[in-house]
Structure formats: structure tokens, C-alpha cells
């Protein structure tokens, strides 16, 4: 290795030493006892107390010490070998459930073993210290990764690459603990992670949460509660909020973004198979269209209603994968032909939207009654979402796919793993396909995924391509890895309840609670959690990895609380809502160092409102909505249809900006005149002022205008501003200028002294007199506010 390459490694290494631990000061708010106040920087004094709760238990801030060209080997292993080579490359195969499970190198992962680093370092050291015959005594580690010694995965790290150089350095350090080279990298004085980050106020947090999860503004009682109890009162408020129907609407919407069952591509009732339900699945046929439409609506929503039921009843959320029941409504129960059995259990058997839990009997031919499903219990072996017909229909199969889509979807939804994300580049995959009799079981490039994918796929063998339950006449494929899960084969006597067997394992898997926290994170934050950085050549790799690990530590801590709370999903919402990650709002000064900027790049709860959330916010603040938003404009405004379009847009394009402008104009088009037409006690926005109050009036008039602006800023934007705040002044100037110029135009005969009749339809207030142009002035003020970041983002 030449001097330049060595310096490259060491530059990175020094950065790591300086950036170092990912453990400090991140999680104070997860524990009520030491929650920082609203203006606290979340690092600072909490750093020491939270150090152990931080990232991966490997490094503490105290251990960092001064700038050190030659940090301990364990630090080098963690930040260089593990972060940049082993985790992104070796873990795909060298784990207990992977295709290299029978080799000498079996690694452990963070989520399954807290002491994974020590174990893995020892394994790597042993490999590094072994010279290999026939390769000039070169370390076995280096020979293996470059494809030698019959490495099953072939060449995964090429000589000359950064990753290879890191391994070379590791080998040298194992051989000679004194091995070290100087560095020329400028130092980075690593601050504690939340240093200088300021949190949004408790009241602003309250507003964000009530709008986000409750589709409403905070009540006076809630405001007082938080005024009195500060951040500690937020969880109490959430306890109440999470009993409201609006919360469950948001919960279902958020989980549909993840499971996408609303995107089933067919008439809803067809999730019930012809064979088992043909006599009843179309029961509203011949009835008014509205009945059928409602039936289709409710039956499609059943998986999401199951989730809502589990959360509403505060049942362990492991039931997402294990619930031995489905939920049915009076309408869907008819589809299943069980209405007579359950009708007395409904509060209102006429309410199509009331859902209650129910265990289906094992499946029979709906006409002949012939039993078509083996079941020692006599019941359909429910396993939460896993066994809903909606899931199997939403993720259909083909003869050659062999349930692999379903398998990978289960991995994603329940265990946070997309096996296709880690798919390796195969050297001539087509040649590989023909080189082996059975590539998916023999070719190392294929086995890496199929060994994990195919066993779970086999658990779905009793569901046909479209998603109906139908036991294959000729049994399951024998040229696939046998049905099972993560290295454990499905016992023969469990086959009739294979997915229940799977659900039990998912519920006990440490990845499950972490994945559920990640789902709630996505619902609250509007984006997915960070993934580990991959470009080891980037100068910002270490900063990005620090951000990743700090966030990971928070996710893991919330997951631990989730487990302790008997998997009550509401606890996850509460923990995330008060975490500094959600409350981070600003920074005390400019961020000069790009590495610091990279660390903080993803921080904060700010997110563009989805079409659905914006619609609800309009309703909450103005008492009205902009109907096209959830009709013609949903996709254009970044929404999804759960089938072809499944990812929401997080930043607005020009066309979305146009929609924002339309909304800001349209929603207030007749709002001011409508407001002023109401008795004062019924007004939402202008209870203290009348159109006769003008900027060119008395000092009291001008004060009243300013106060109204302060009130509007609070209601529309959640800002608590003083009368002399620059933003109040700016808004006042807008109102003043519009009114003054409008009055001039009226006087000159160039503008009407009445509001245009364009807005307001047939309403009596549609065309009121506006001789002072003040109604139109207030309309301009509201348009101005709606178009702002604080309105359109949470």
C-alpha cells in the first residue's frame, strides 16, 4: 500500500476518532425524569447520563479522549472494518441464517446481540492473523474477500479499493499493535450530537401533535395542561388524544402507507374467494349502489381496522402478526356469511363501520359445506395480517415467483428487512442461471437471498396465485429451500397453521419491535428512518454514520420501552413524540463545518403535510376543506394510490406549489365575508374586529388590527408572537398596503366597493359591501399565511 493510500485510511480513521461515539445526549426526553425543557439543547448536561443508552454500547464519549492518531484496535474495528466493510458486505451471508452459516466466520448483528462487536472483532482478528498457503502467506482475510481460497461469495472486496485498504490496515494492526501512520486530515472538534440544537416549544409541539394525530387544534384544557406540566404533560395529552376517532383515522392511513392493502387491484369483495364465499361475498347485489359501495369500502379496510382494534384496545401489537381473529363489521360479516353468529355482539348492527373481533371457522365450500381446510381446532388459523385474504390478494403470486413477493413483503413489514436491498451484483447472472441445476439452492450468488426468502415463501404454500386459500394438489416445490423461517424448518405437524407458526416467531424476534418503531417513526416524521451510509469513500461517511447510529440508538431505546409496555403501540407514539429527534426545531448559529451539517442533515420533525393531513388541517383551522385536494389533486400533491404509486413525495414540485397557491386563494375566497356575516360569538377568525376598522383609523383601530394579526398567526401558523414582532409588522404592512391601495382605487373608480360575487355561490354574504377594502385586505393576509412553511409543513 502506498503512502497516499495509507494516508487516506488514516485520515478517515482520525475523523472517526474525532467524531467517535454516537452515544451522547440523545434520549433525555424518552425518560420523563430528565426531559429537557422546550429550549434545552438536548445534548449538554444529558450527555453523560445518556451515554450508555446511546448507540451500540461500544464506545462512550469519555473514552474518546484527545485527538489520537492511533486509537485502540476495537475502535478501528468498529468504525472502519465493521462500518465500512463487514456490515455492508459480509453480513449478507456470514450470519446464522445466511448461506455462510456453516463456515468459520459467523457474525452477529447489532439487533440480535448487544455484544456483537466484540464477537465479530475476535472472529476477524482470528481470520486476519491466519496466513494462507499458496498466497505468499497473505492474511486469510485478505485472500478470502478478494475471492481466493474458494470463498463462496467470490470476490467481494477488490484489492485497491478503500474497503480493501481498511482490511489491509486491520491485518497490519493485528500483526503489530504499534502499527500506525500519521494523518494530514484537519481535525474536527466533534460536538455532542444535539449541541446548539434548540427544541420547538412545548405548546408548538402540542399543536403539531393534535393536528397530526387528532386533526384538530389543541383544546384550552390541553394548552393549560402543557402550560402547567411542560413536556411531561405531553404524554398525558396524548393518552387522551389517542382515544379519539381522528387518531385511528391517521393510524390506519399511516399503516396503509406501509402495508398498502388499500391498493388491492380488484373489486373489494373478491378478496373473499369464490370457492368459500361465493354464496355471500356479493350480498348487496341488487341493493342501492351506496350499500355496495359502503360494503366494498369496509371490507377493503379490514386489515387496517384490525390494526386500529389492536391499538384501540391496547392489546400487544404482536397481534399484528399473531391475532387469532379478524375484525368484521355488520356488512363484512354478511360477506363471510357469519352475520347471524355475530349480530348480537355489535353495538349497532346497522352501522357498517363498527368492527368487532371474530374467529372464522375453517373454510368450507360455501354451497356444499364440504370442509376444505384441515384444522384441528375447527377454526381458520388466523395470524394477524399474515393470514388476511387482503394481504395475499394485494401481493399476488405467479408460478415462477413461488410466493417470494409475499415472503419479502413479510420481511419488510414485520422485520424491517428488504432482502432485495442487499442483493449483490452477480457476475453474469444469466450464466450462473445455466451453470447450476438449481441456481436458487446452489449458486452462491442466488443462495444469499433465496436461503432466507424461500423458506418463508413456502409457508404461504396453501394460498394460490391470486391469494385464495387452496392447498396445492401436488404439494409444495421440492426444488426450493424447505418451508421455515430464518434457519428453522416448519415442523410437519404445524403445516396446517404454518402462518401462525411464523407469526409466533415474528412476535418473538428482536427485529419486530424495532420495525414497529420504525413504522411509527414514518407515520410521525413523514419519512423513513436513516439507512447506514454506504459510500466509504465519502468524506462525510463518518458524520453520516454518526447520525445513523444516534438515531438507531433512539429507535432501539423506544423499542425497548415498547416491549416493556407489553407492546402497546401508543407508547411508541408517546416516546417518539417527545424525543429530541421530533422536537428539534432550530440551531443556535450557522453550521460551518460540512461534517456537522451532515450529522444534523435529517434532524427534526418538520415534514410536508400529506394531502390528507392538509385537508384535515384546513378543516380544523377554517372549518372547511378544499375538495379537489382529495379528489383530482391527491396524486399531483404527492399522495399515493397504494397500488402503482406507493411512495409519498416529501418536497413540493412546481405543480404542487401551484396547488398550494390555489388552496391559499380558494379557501379564503369568501371566508372573510362569511366570517363578518356571522354573529361575533360564532366567528372562528375575526371575533374581535369588524370590517370598519381601518389602518387609517384611530390608534385603537391600529392596535386592534395588530392584535387580530397576532391571533391569526397563532391560529393559522401556531406562532405566539408579540405585537411588535417583525412578522406581525410585516403582516400589518401587507394589510395596510392592500387596504390603502384598494381605497385609492375605489376612490378613483378603478375598483368596486363591493367584494366580487365570484366566491360564495348562492350564500347571502357572497357580494357584501367592502367600501374600505378591509374584507379583501384580510383575505390577502390569510392567503399570505397559508402559503407559508409553518402552514404547509408540520
Amino acid at each position: 500500500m502506498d503512502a497516499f493510500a495509507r494516508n487516506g485510511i488514516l485520515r478517515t480513521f482520525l475523523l472517526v476518532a474525532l467524531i467517535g461515539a454516537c452515544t451522547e445526549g440523545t434520549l433525555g426526553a424518552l425518560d420523563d425524569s430528565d426531559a429537557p425543557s422546550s429550549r434545552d439543547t438536548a445534548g449538554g448536561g444529558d450527555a453523560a447520563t445518556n451515554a450508555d443508552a446511546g448507540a451500540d454500547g461500544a464506545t462512550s464519549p469519555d473514552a474518546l479522549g484527545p485527538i489520537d492518531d492511533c486509537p485502540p484496535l476495537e475502535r478501528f474495528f468498529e468504525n472502519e472494518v465493521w462500518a465500512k466493510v463487514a456490515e455492508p458486505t459480509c453480513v449478507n451471508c456470514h450470519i446464522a441464517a445466511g448461506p455462510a452459516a456453516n463456515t468459520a466466520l459467523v457474525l452477529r448483528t447489532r439487533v440480535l446481540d448487544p455484544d456483537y462487536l466484540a464477537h465479530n472483532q475476535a472472529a476477524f482478528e482470528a481470520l486476519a492473523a491466519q496466513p494462507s498457503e499458496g498466497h505468499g502467506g497473505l492474511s486469510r482475510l485478505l485472500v478470502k474477500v478478494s475471492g481466493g481460497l474458494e470463498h463462496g461469495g467470490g470476490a467481494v472486496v477488490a484489492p485497491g479499493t478503500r474497503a480493501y485498504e481498511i482490511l489491509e490496515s486491520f491485518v497490519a494492526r493485528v500483526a503489530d499493535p504499534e502499527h500506525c501512520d500519521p494523518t494530514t486530515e484537519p481535525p474536527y472538534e466533534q460536538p455532542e450530537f444535539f449541541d446548539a440544537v434548540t427544541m420547538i416549544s412545548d405548546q408548538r409541539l402540542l399543536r403539531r401533535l393534535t393536528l397530526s394525530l387528532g386533526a384538530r387544534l389543541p383544546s384550552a384544557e390541553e394548552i393549560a395542561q402543557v402550560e402547567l406540566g411542560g413536556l411531561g404533560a405531553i404524554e398525558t395529552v396524548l393518552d387522551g388524544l389517542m382515544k379519539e376517532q381522528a387518531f385511528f383515522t391517521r393510524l390506519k392511513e399511516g399503516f396503509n402507507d406501509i402495508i398498502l392493502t388499500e391498493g388491492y387491484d380488484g373489486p373489494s369483495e373478491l378478496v373473499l374467494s369464490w370457492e368459500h364465499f361465493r354464496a355471500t361475498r356479493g350480498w348487496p347485489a341488487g341493493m342501492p349502489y351506496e350499500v355496495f359501495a359502503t360494503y366494498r369500502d369496509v371490507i377493503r379496510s379490514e386489515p387496517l381496522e384490525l390494526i386500529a382494534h389492536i391499538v384501540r384496545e391496547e392489546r400487544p401489537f404482536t397481534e399484528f402478526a399473531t391475532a387469532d381473529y379478524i375484525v368484521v363489521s355488520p356488512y363484512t360479516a354478511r360477506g363471510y356469511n357469519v352475520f347471524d353468529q355475530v349480530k348480537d355482539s355489535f353495538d349497532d348492527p346497522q352501522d357498517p363501520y363498527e368492527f368487532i373481533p371474530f374467529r372464522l371457522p375453517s373454510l368450507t365450500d360455501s354451497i356444499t359445506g364440504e370442509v376444505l381446510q384441515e384444522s384441528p381446532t375447527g377454526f381458520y388459523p388466523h395470524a394477524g395480517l399474515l393470514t388476511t385474504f387482503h394481504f395475499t390478494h394485494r401481493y399476488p403470486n405467479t408460478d415462477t415467483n413461488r410466493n417470494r413477493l409475499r415472503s419479502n413483503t413479510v420481511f419488510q413489514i414485520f422485520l424491517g428487512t428488504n432482502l432485495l436491498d442487499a442483493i449483490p451484483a452477480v457476475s453474469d447472472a444469466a450464466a450462473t442461471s445455466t451453470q447450476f441445476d438449481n441456481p436458487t439452492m446452489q449458486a452462491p450468488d442466488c443462495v444469499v437471498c433465496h436461503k432466507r426468502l424461500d423458506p418463508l415463501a413456502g409457508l404461504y404454500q396453501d394460498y394460490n396465485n391470486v391469494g385464495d386459500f387452496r392447498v396445492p394438489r401436488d404439494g409444495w416445490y421440492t426444488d426450493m429451500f424447505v418451508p421455515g423461517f430464518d434457519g428453522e424448518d416448519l415442523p410437519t405437524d404445524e403445516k396446517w397453521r404454518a402462518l401462525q407458526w411464523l407469526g409466533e416467531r415474528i412476535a418473538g424476534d428482536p427485529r419486530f419491535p424495532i420495525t414497529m418503531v420504525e413504522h411509527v417513526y414514518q407515520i410521525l416524521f413523514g419519512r423513513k428512518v436513516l439507512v447506514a451510509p454506504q459510500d466509504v469513500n465519502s468524506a462525510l461517511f463518518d458524520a453520516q454514520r454518526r447520525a445513523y447510529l444516534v438515531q438507531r440508538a433512539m429507535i432501539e431505546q423506544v423499542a425497548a420501552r415498547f416491549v416493556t409496555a407489553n407492546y402497546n403501540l401508543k407508547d411508541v407514539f408517546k416516546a417518539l413524540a417527545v424525543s429530541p429527534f421530533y422536537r428539534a426545531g432550530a440551531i443556535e448559529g450557522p453550521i460551518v463545518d460540512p461534517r456537522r451539517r451532515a450529522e444534523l442533515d435529517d434532524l427534526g420533525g418538520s415534514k410536508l403535510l400529506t394531502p390528507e393531513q392538509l385537508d384535515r388541517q384546513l378543516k380544523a383551522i377554517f372549518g372547511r376543506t378544499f375538495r379537489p385536494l382529495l379528489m383530482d389533486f391527491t396524486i399531483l400533491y404527492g399522495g399515493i394510490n397504494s397500488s402503482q404509486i406507493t411512495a409519498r413525495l416529501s418536497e413540493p414540485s412546481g405543480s404542487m406549489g401551484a396547488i398550494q397557491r390555489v388552496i391559499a386563494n380558494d379557501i379564503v375566497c369568501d371566508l372573510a365575508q362569511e366570517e363578518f356575516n356571522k354573529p361575533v360569538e360564532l366567528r372562528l377568525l375575526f371575533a374581535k374586529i369588524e370590517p370598519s376598522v381601518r389602518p387609517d383609523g384611530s390608534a385603537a383601530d391600529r392596535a386592534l388590527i395588530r392584535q387580530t394579526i397576532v391571533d391569526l398567526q397563532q391560529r393559522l401558523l401556531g406562532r405566539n408572537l408579540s405585537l411588535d414582532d417583525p412578522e406581525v409588522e410585516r403582516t400589518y404592512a401587507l394589510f395596510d398596503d392592500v387596504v390603502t391601495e384598494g381605497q385609492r382605487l375605489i376612490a378613483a373608480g378603478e375598483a368596486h366597493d363591493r367584494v366580487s360575487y365570484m366566491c360564495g355561490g348562492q350564500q347571502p354574504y357572497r357580494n357584501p359591501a367592502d367600501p374600505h377594502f378591509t374584507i379583501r385586505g384580510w383575505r390577502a393576509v390569510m392567503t399570505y399565511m397559508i402559503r407559508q412553511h409553518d402552514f404547509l409543513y408540520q
Partner: protein
Amino acid sequence: MERRDFLKLCALAGLGIAAPIGLTRNAYGEGGITEGPYYLVFNADGGWDTSSLMDPKGVNDINRLYREGDIRTEGPHRFAPTAGRFERGMSNEAFFAKYGRDLLTLNGLDYSTNNHDPGKRYMATGKLDSLVYPTFAALVAASKGSDVPLAFVSFGNYSATGNLLPLSRISNIGQLSLLGLPDHHRGNVSNPYHEEDFVQRRIQQALKEEHEAQGARAQLPRVERSQSMLYAAQLNATTLSRLLPYIGDEQPEEALSRQANIALAGFKAGVCVSANLNISRFDSHDDNDSIQMQVIPELLAGIDYAVERAEALGIRDKVVIVIQSEMGRTPWYNENGGKDHWSIGSVMFMGPGIRGNRVLGATDDGQKLLKVNPDTLALDAGAGGIHIRPEHLHQALRTYAGIEDHALAARFPLNLAAAERLNTLW
């Protein structure tokens, strides 16, 4: 530190900052205008059967639609005969006759994977093992037109932006008509919402002041980025109206052509740099021949529409076309008459500066790839031959677009050895 300097620093550092507003405004103070070139990426979503298009195989029962002697040629292009085998669309014969001289075909492309999502990601970005790399269409849009209102439009397929710019989805022209005049009731120019023009101008002035006040404060990167993008999005909104005059009077029936129509109007108006067009239904696990004979002619008809439309708009010499799919299909039929996933395929290019009338690379009689010498682009089974993979194409595309040394491209390196670059591809 000046804000501009700060932004430059961040850009150099590779951070996701939106383009600073106001640096390249047009004369109206709205979004910028791009003069081209413009990039259209056609995606045959699901995996095309190249033996039914540009890489015909008349042997080994690879394709049952024809025999070896039926294979047609047009200059160096060899293609499957499809005339008369479908109901709607354009035949291979017509397509190659019309565009063969403009068309660069590369066969024997190594997709390296048999799976849809990774394949789409790889073909779109040139990077298989990353979830954060932008598509080429997004990268070129961000590099060449970061302040252009609809710089990157996508109608489907893998569309990651690398956090470089916002993605625009436009599903129908009617929406554009309504949104083209967002400050007017129902898009009617005679009905401004705020009645008097000065009101809207005064609102915009207040928003500008508010945006500047926010910008003067230290912000978290995410907030700073979103404020900048929001302001740009609203400012750019009125420029949508520039696109409307270039939407043809008659809307095409086929979905792909409709997508092309919107994209090309955006190009002509200078408000769009690149577009991802998508036609699905290629995933023919059952009844391969019937399905491919529906979608291939539809794909070719869409390309033909796009070129014709570009010609009509006077921008054909500025439109670069990439025609691709995420994988090929097996050189055999399964028991359902379908073909499953195959990691070897093809790609085609047309556009200014691209020498057409050429076919590079090849597959053998088993539809396995043959190596290519990256220097000469000739087949080379020796040590000098390589598998052409998506990263090779993307490196070449970056060079072609003049963005390989752009700071944004540098943030997403392809790490291709100099010896493997396809320097003479174009």
C-alpha cells in the same frame, strides 16, 4: 459568512441543499428556462423480451414467433419480425425503417440481477447497491436546471432524486390547465381570486420578505432545505402556464404517448429538463408472446409519437431518448408459455450527438452475453473484454450530458476504472 458562500460550502460538501433562490431567475422573476438538451427515458416496465425486438433469436426455440430466416434487418440492425402480429402500435419493421439510422443499440447488457426492483434501481441510477443514488434523469435535471420549475417529471418507474430536486408527477393535462393560473378562480384568466392584480403582487412581496427573514436565521438543514424548496415551488407555479400552449389540440389515446406529450410540452416551454416515461405490463410470466406483442408495439408507437411531437415542436434536435428495461426474459418458455426473468438485455439510444445506425455488443445463440472491449467496443472474448453493465452506460451518459465533473455527480460516484470507460460509445 455570506449566505451564498455558505450554500456553496454546503454544495461542495455534498449536502442536500435546494438551489438558492434568485440566482438564475428569468426575466419574470419566476423559474428558470432551459434551452436543452432534454432527456426522455422510456422504461419498459417488467422486463422486455429482447428476442422479440432488437436482439432476435431464431434458434433453440428461444422465440416461437419466427424462425432464423424470418429475422429482418435494417442496416446493421437485426430485429424480430412483428408486422401483422398485433392490433395496436408500431411494428419493429416500421420502427427500424424509420429510426434505424438514428438508433444506437447495445445488446448483451449485463443487468446483473433477476429482480424487478433492484434491476430498476440499477438501470435508473447505475448503482445496484445503493438506495440513495439519483436516477440519471434526476441527476441531469438537477445539474442542468435546478431552478427550472418542473426540472424532473416522472410518470412512474424508479424515480429517486437523491434529494437533489423535487420530483413532479403530472397525471393529466386537465390538471395543468387548472393549475396554470393558480391565482385565478378555476384557472379562468378573467377571474383573479384577489380581484385586483396589485393584491397578489403585494402578497408575493410579503412572502419574499418572509422567506428572506427565515433565510437569515440559522436553521436545521432539513428546515432550511424545505423552506427553500417550498418558496421555489410556489414561485415556479405560475410558470406551468407556459407549458399549456405546447400541449397539442388532440390528446393521444395511448398512455405512453400522453406522457410524452406532457413532457415534450415541458421541454418546449423550457420548464422541464428530463422525464421518466413508463409503460408497464412487460412482465410476461404467462403467455409471453401475446403480451410482448401488445406492449412492444405500444412502446415503439410511444417513442414514435414522442419523436414526431418533438419534430412538430421544433425541438427534435435537442431531445435525447433512452429506451430501457430492468431486465430481459429467459431464452426459453416456461410451462405457461411465459418467460421468466433473465439478467441479459439491451438498451437503445437516440439523440443529438449520438451516432446512430450502429449495433454494439451481442448475445450468443443461448442469449448469453458476449464480452465487449471498452476501447474499441468490438466483441472481445479475451482478457480485454468486459461485461457492459449499467454503471458503464451511466458513466457514458454523464459524459454525454457534460455532467460527469459536476459537483452533484461527484456526490454519487460510479467508481468506474478508467480502463472500463466507454469513451467512444457516442
